[in-house]
């Protein structure tokens, strides 16, 4: 009896998964392995080897990697600083980090477009100060910049959480045993925050890899990521089979990166905090 009631409670969630995750995935798989006339074919998936598609996949991987590394480099010190602050100001700063997420993601990208444009706010200010203009709009740099801006909170928060959970006693014990700051950092803080770092990496790398809206709006149509190729296949070419085929390839990359990270994460405890 209790079992049934529990299952009923999970009902909405199972329904949600079936309707919005499982079913679409099955449809993508169906389209990916058939031709427009419905025959089995591997052509859609193997078309990833077309130079055009391969090039955009490599570019996506590169930009996503750059974005993840920059986010990590910014977030780790930040989480350490946050952790050192009084608890009252900690809450405030975390709040400031989450604040931009209250605004729609598209609007924020569009705002960056305005800010970065040739006669935009940033370039006007630089001009007044007599500095050379910033010419990054419509280049991969602008895309990485905006992805970092968008995904930074997803890196900061898990690392910060992991760091906040480290007991002060552990560090004091290490000091008692004569460990220096460097040793404490590498032997205690880094291993204990690894789970946060790994979930941060997944939460930044995966959306960055599959993103297409940022490159569309800030790349000026010149930065063709694999996400854009897929979008174009669906929306422009009316070739759902090709779009699905490439999506499947992308999914393999996403799953592989998550599996890799999870395997690493197991050494240091649970992945998702």
């Amino acid at each position, binding site marked *: 009896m209790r079992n*049934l009631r529990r*299952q*009923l409670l*999970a*009902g909405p969630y*199972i*329904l949600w998964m*079936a*309707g919005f995750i499982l079913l679409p995935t099955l449809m993508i798989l169906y389209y990916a392995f058939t031709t427009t006339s419905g025959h089995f074919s591997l052509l859609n998936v193997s078309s990833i080897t077309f130079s*055009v598609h391969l*090039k*955009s996949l490599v*570019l996506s991987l590169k930009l996503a990697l750059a974005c993840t590394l920059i986010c990590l480099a910014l977030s780790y010190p930040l989480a350490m600083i946050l952790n050192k602050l009084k608890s009252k100001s900690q809450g405030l700063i975390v709040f400031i980090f989450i604040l931009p997420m209250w605004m729609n993601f598209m609007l924020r990208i569009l705002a960056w477009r305005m800010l970065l*444009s*040739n*006669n*935009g706010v940033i370039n006007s200010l630089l001009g007044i100060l007599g500095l050379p203009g910033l*010419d990054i*709009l*419509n280049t991969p740099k602008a895309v990485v910049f905006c992805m970092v801006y968008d995904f930074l909170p997803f890196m900061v928060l898990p690392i910060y959480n992991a760091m906040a959970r480290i007991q002060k006693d552990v560090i004091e014990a290490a000091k008692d045993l004569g460990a220096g700051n460097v040793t404490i950092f590498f032997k205690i803080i880094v291993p204990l925050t690894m789970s946060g770092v790994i979930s941060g990496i997944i939460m930044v790398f995966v959306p960055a890899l599959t993103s297409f809206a940022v490159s569309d709006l800030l790349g*000026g*149509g*010149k930065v*063709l990521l694999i996400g*854009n*190729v897929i979008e*174009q296949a*669906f*929306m*422009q*070419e*009316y070739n759902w089979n090709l779009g699905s085929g490439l999506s499947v390839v992308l999914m393999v990359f996403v799953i592989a990166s998550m599996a890799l990270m999870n395997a690493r994460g197991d050494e240091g405890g649970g992945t998702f905090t």
Partner: protein
Amino acid sequence: MRKTLLLILGILAMSGLSAGCGKDSPNTLTVLNYGKYIESEVLDMFEEETGIKVEYEEYITPENMYTKYKAGAIDYDLICTSDYMIEKLISEGEVLEMDYSHIPLSENLDKAYFDFSKSFDPQNKYTLPYFFGTVGILYNKEMVDESKAASWDVLWDKEYAGKIIMADSVRDSFMVAQKRLGYSLNITDDGQLREAQNLLIEQKPLVYSYLVDEAQDEMIAENAAMAVVYSGEAGLALEYNDKLAFSVPKEGSNMWIDSWFMPKSAKHIENAEKFLNFLCRKDIARLNFDYVYYATPNNRVKESLDKKLQENTTVFPPTETLENCEVFKSLDDEATMRYNLYWKEIKSAD
């Protein structure tokens, strides 16, 4: 486990049923149109006057429209799109015949444009012209010399590197290269197409961005020196910034007509006819003209404009310009695939 499965199936079946008998209220009209292509007030006025609820949707390029329509998720009653895409849909048997006697105000439209429409609707059976125009270069007079802007060559001029906006639409971009090479804009020959592609790849490092609807805003903000735009957008941009000017290059260009048609999915034909008739009414067509600013085929509206605007060659392309222009024809599947692939290669080139 089996219980859970049954539960899922049950709920799925229920949701399927409710979707099936969902909204099909008789007094609605589902319209699909280009972005920024109607004065929104017009929709409110139509709803108020007729009590018909308008469900209005927008798209960016004709190819997007085709996908939205073909996906079949929404039964559109009325769609507005460009010549070659209508031709494609007619050839696929997706378009319903129009009964012009139910749209009495279509008399306001100049017969000349029904003749133009024959290039894609040979018997004038399926479409009602909405706006027409050309494609040309919108440029900033302070940055670009008028004599230079008279040729497509200016879009390859290294002097303007990083200040050129190209069209983010397959056929419009290829058209520029094809006309510069002196080819027809409907070529399917692979060699010629490759030539045009190479030209566009060569141009890419000079391009600031590829845009459609936003090109006009970027030019008004003076973020670029020139942009490939539709004539009406240029007309509107000129109103906002008087440093801007428009030219249709001497090598020729594309003349397009955007028309309304009723797709096979139409469920509310009577409402669609009422809407079309409403759009042809003088005051309504004028409101739309003032907002969209493309050349209108509506004689009553053109007469009502002041002399200066009637003679504005940006908004109303003169006959000699139109004679130098070509209309897009629909391409077969193989050629379309080739255009799409080559376009993708341009977009991914360094």
